[in-house]
C-alpha cells in the first residue's frame, strides 16, 4: 500500500450505461472527508459537488491517478480489477446491477462473488453499507491461486497450429 498517498479514486469505466448510484454515494462521503476524492464519471449524468471529476481521462492521466491513489472505489469492471491486481492497489467494488439499468446483466456481481471465493476481492452490493471504514479496509484484489498457462498455451498453438487433443483442465 502507498503509505504516503492521500487520494480516493472513484471510477465507473467507459461503459455506455450510467452509474449515478455509486457517484452520488461517494460524493456524499467526500462531503465529510478531509481526504481528496477524484471521480471518473464516464457516461453518468450525476455531477459531483464535493469532488474534482472528469468524464473520461487520457490513458496517461488515468494511470497517474491510479498509481497516486491510496484506494480505488470502482464498478466491478474487469479492466479496473486487473489494473489494481497488477499494481497491488487496494480496491473495493460496487457491481453494476441490471435492476438499476447499470448494465444489461449481472455479470459484475458474478465476478465479485467468484473472485471473493477463489481469490480475494473487496466489494459491497448494498451501497448503503459502503463507508470510509470499508473503503480503508479494502484489499488488493487477487485472482485464483490456480497457476495460469494461458500465454504458454497460446504460444504453443502459434508454433504448432495443427490440431491436437484439447487440454480441457476443468
Amino acid at each position, binding site marked *: 500500500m502507498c503509505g504516503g498517498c492521500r487520494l480516493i479514486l472513484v471510477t465507473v469505466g467507459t*461503459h455506455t450505461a450510467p452509474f449515478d448510484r455509486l457517484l452520488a454515494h461517494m460524493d456524499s462521503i467526500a462531503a465529510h472527508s478531509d481526504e481528496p476524492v477524484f471521480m471518473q464519471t464516464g457516461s453518468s449524468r450525476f455531477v459531483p459537488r464535493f469532488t474534482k471529476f472528469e468524464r473520461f481521462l*487520457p490513458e496517461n492521466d488515468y494511470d497517474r491517478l491510479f498509481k497516486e491513489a491510496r484506494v480505488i472505489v470502482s464498478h466491478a469492471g474487469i479492466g479496473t480489477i486487473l489494473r489494481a491486481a497488477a499494481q497491488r492497489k487496494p480496491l473495493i467494488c460496487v457491481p453494476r446491477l441490471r435492476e438499476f439499468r447499470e448494465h444489461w446483466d449481472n455479470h459484475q456481481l*458474478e*465476478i465479485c462473488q467468484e473472485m471473493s471465493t477463489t481469490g480475494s476481492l473487496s466489494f459491497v452490493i448494498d451501497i448503503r453499507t459502503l463507508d470510509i471504514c470499508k473503503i480503508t479496509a479494502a484489499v488488493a484484489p487477487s485472482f485464483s491461486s490456480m497457476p*495460469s498457462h494461458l500465454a504458454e498455451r*497460446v*504460444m504453443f498453438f502459434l508454433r504448432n497450429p495443427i490440431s491436437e487433443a484439447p487440454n480441457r483442465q476443468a
Partner: protein
Amino acid sequence: MKKNLDRSSLVPKVGLVCSHGGHLTEIQLLQTKLTGVETFLITYKSVRTVPGDRTYLVSNIGTKPWKLVVAFFRISLAIAREKPEALISTGAEIALPAFLIGRALGVKLIFIESLARTTRPSVTGFLLYPVSDLFLVQWPRLLHRYGDRAECVGAVA
C-alpha cells in the same frame, strides 16, 4: 478460399482484436506475455487508444448494422495489409467481422472468453466457438457451457 498467406519470417505475426474497456486491458496484458511474436491491434476508438502504424481503430459497432459494415471494410483492410498468421480476440462484438474475414483468408483464430464471463458464455463466444481454432475460457465453471474443444488453462492475469 485463400490459404494461409505466405510469410518468409519465422516470427509469427498476430492480430489482436478487441473492443474497449476490460477487453482491451486483457489483450494488452496478454500482449506483454507473448514473446517472439509480432503483433498489431484492431480495437475501438476511445480515449485510451490512438491510431498508429500497428494500431487500427474502428468506431464502436454497438448494435448499429451500418457501423458493422463500415467496421467490416476497415478490418478487412487492416488484415489484408498486415497478413497475420493468427487473430486473437477477447471479444466483444468486434471479433465477429474480424473472425469472419480471418476465416475467409485462412488465418488461425484464437478466441479467449473474457475474464468478465465467470459462469455464462458471452454472445460473441457462443457464436465464434464453432469457427475458432483455439477456444479458451478463463474460469473453470464456464468450461462446461461449451463443447469439447473449449479449454481452461488459467486466466490472463
